[in-house]
């Protein structure tokens, strides 16, 4: 069974603080993703990584950075948290590539609900 774990379920931070969200997967997946989930906006991709030390911007990277030093771990960093970054953050992982026209399934963690006050 694929397991994606996120370091915290709930987090409350103050404006201007540096925030680290950690994600670990145990299935040796090459790809890892960070999304934020907001009502009415669905899942929006912040960053993804297809290999150690590799990263690509998603659709909403502003205000965020990421780090992938080990294959199983992908960190999302809010350099200076702001109230508009209050959201649910979801990490996901998948195998790299495609097989016979199909894509590999993305497996999601349970999410971290971040509140910035």
């Amino acid at each position: 069974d694929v397991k994606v774990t996120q370091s915290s379920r709930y987090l409350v931070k103050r404006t201007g603080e540096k925030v680290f969200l950690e994600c670990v997967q145990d299935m040796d997946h090459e790809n890892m993703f960070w999304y934020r989930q907001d009502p009415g906006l669905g899942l929006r991709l912040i960053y993804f990584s297809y290999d150690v030390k590799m990263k690509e911007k998603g659709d909403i990277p502003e205000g965020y950075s990421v780090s992938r030093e080990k294959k199983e771990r992908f960190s999302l960093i809010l350099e200076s948290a702001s109230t508009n970054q209050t959201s649910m953050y979801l990490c996901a992982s998948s195998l790299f590539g495609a097989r016979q026209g199909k894509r590999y399934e993305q497996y999601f963690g349970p999410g971290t609900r971040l509140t910035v006050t």
Partner: protein
Amino acid sequence: QQQVKQSPQSLIVQKGGISIINCAYENTAFDYFPWYQQFPGKGPALLIAIRPDVSEKKEGRFTISFNKSAKQFSLHIMDSQPGDSATYFCAASDIYNFNKFYFGSGTKLNVKP
């Protein structure tokens, strides 16, 4: 700008009824369309997926219908059950960046007993 438009935002269906969620897209490079199901307090999980070379795919009570010319696809849940109450996301992936999924805005389904 959302690449996959999903409707409705919320849906209430009686037990035993049919739930229908619709999605539309413009990007003709999309060639893989998964649906994810998310229960409260959990991350989304893959429910069913379709490629555009078929018009329908059925798995149990869940069916995806695909209309390539209209660039629309939909999820039908037959004989809806209270246990189906969840948020459903459609998504799409294109042939150039197949590791990346574009998700719709989500539909919160409530099946009343």
